């Protein structure tokens, strides 16, 4: 299958379940909300080396937020609810509470599987924190130096899907990067997903394991152009650059929609992209298999796809 002269590999991205939360961060201005969201999602690209995977999902208009101020929604993923709670408490405590004018609310309903965030951070108030309960939700108001930090006690969680991915291969680094940026821009318009790597793009794709026992992951030698001739390669002749986009979503459908959007926007033969593929572990790692050909066939988007 091809899109605009770019080969779409007949393969699948292998994704796995992760627990997710959505934080609604508000501030007096959109700029401070954005700053806060970016800070909260810092150092959260991959659970290979971080406590969580996180990124800004989208910006929110004042009428979309609980306190009527501009905001951003941040999705945070971790391997378990306990790990997610730890990461959220640290990230909200160190990156949201510290940020001028902000407040933080749960963007998912807090059912039985909720994690305690404001309920842990309240102790920073040293006894001067104020609890407010309204319509079944509890908020903590913690005195800080510019007034108060408001944080919801419980944040709802859901079982999300992490590790969806696209891998773009091409002949020219600048061109492939631009095509990948355009794919990222299209994928970020899909709700309920994040692309946690810098600018949504990873250049250091990894494989499981290493010759060094202490490492859980190491460079994906099969996709490293400079190792051609030394190790088995997956790179066709002429490919000199590979970029990966990792997708975490609240649902499998959201990850599939983002995959479709990325395939259409990233298939830029004019920028030197020759093929788009996806990473998997032969089906041994995760239960979710996102087949590139299947998502393209089931999408209604105009493709220009050829056989």
């Amino acid at each position, binding site marked *: 299958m091809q899109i605009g002269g770019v080969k779409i590999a007949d393969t699948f991205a292998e994704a796995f379940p992760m627990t997710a939360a959505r934080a609604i961060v508000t501030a*007096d201005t959109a700029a401070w909300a954005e700053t806060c969201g970016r800070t909260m999602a810092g150092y959260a690209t991959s659970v290979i080396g971080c406590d969580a995977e996180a990124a800004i999902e989208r910006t929110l208009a004042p009428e979309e937020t*609980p*306190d*009527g101020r501009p905001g951003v929604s941040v999705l945070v993923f971790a391997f378990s609810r306990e790990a997610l709670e730890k990461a959220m408490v640290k990230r909200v405590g160190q990156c949201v509470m510290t940020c001028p004018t902000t407040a933080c609310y749960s963007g998912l309903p807090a059912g039985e599987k909720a994690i305690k965030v404001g309920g842990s951070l309240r102790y920073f108030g040293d006894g001067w924190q*104020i609890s407010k309960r*309204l319509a079944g939700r509890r908020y903590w*108001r913690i005195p800080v130096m510019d007034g108060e930090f*408001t944080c919801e006690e419980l944040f709802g969680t859901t079982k999300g899907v992490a590790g969806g991915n696209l891998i773009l291969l091409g002949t020219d680094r600048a061109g492939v990067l631009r095509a990948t940026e355009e794919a990222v821009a299209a994928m970020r318009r899909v709700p309920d997903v994040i692309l946690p790597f810098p600018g949504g793009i990873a250049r250091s794709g990894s494989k499981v394991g290493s010759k060094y026992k202490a490492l859980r992951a190491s460079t994906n030698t099969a996709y490293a152009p400079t190792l051609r001739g030394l190790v088995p390669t997956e790179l066709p002749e002429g490919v000199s650059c590979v970029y990966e986009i990792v997708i975490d979503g609240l649902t499998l459908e959201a990850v599939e929609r983002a995959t479709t959007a990325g395939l259409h926007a990233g298939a830029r033969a004019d920028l030197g992209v020759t093929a788009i593929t996806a990473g998997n572990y032969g089906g041994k790692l995760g239960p979710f298999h996102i087949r590139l050909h299947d998502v393209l066939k089931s999408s209604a988007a105009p493709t220009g796809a050829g056989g």
Partner: protein
Amino acid sequence: MSLTITWRGATALPVDGRTLKPATFAVMSVDEARRVAIRVGNGKVELGELFDVRGGGGGDGLTIEGDLRGVRGIGRRMAAGTMVLRGDVGAELGAEMSGGIIELHGSAGPYAGAEMRGGRLSIRGDAGDHLGAAYPGSRLGMREGVILVEGRAGEDVGAVMRRGLIAIRGDVGAGLGRGMIAGTALVLGAVGRQAGAGMKRGSLILPDLDGQAEAFLVPTFAPAGRYPAPFLEIYYRQLEAWGFAIPRAISSRMLHRYNGDVLIGGRGEVLAGIRGG
């Protein structure tokens, strides 16, 4: 079955309305409802002697109509369902209720919502003294739930309340939140003297004042400067969802804050509005 009960004005004796709540009539026919015992003076009569009872209209709600000022305790300890009242009612409307919704299209006597534990009490007219307050000798007033008053309210609103929300569009008398332990009372009108006196924690939110809070606060409240309170927007939006409209001119962006009552720890707060703030 939905039931409508209409007061016939058949007695001048005080009537104990505690049986008048949706649960009483949940599985009854109209005839059975007419035979429900109700206390009048020091005796009991059948409901049908005082009220016209008719059914129909679908749903499982209860509607009570007429001049009910002589009926006290309507909806007392109500736990579920919806009850609509058309006409003024006596004391203790919804007192100690723990769930459900009472909608009063009229005014209520004293002790409405007293020691309430949950649910929502909506009063379209005025409320008397001791709204959401504790009974004499009791240590706790309202403990949970929501009271909305479109008109005015009397003295000692929310006295010794422990939790919950009271919102009043009109003026309130003296002693608002007196001895308050926690919870939130929001008043859009004028406030009588000694508001918050002896309050331990809790919030008195007076967003339509213009820096006049010193006039009615006791001296044991400490001014704490101007204060942005974005969390109030959460309250405003929820109140709007409950049908209690907040005027557009009212803002959560900046309020005067007073901490008190410092005689007993000072963890309560009075947030008073700044026009154009």
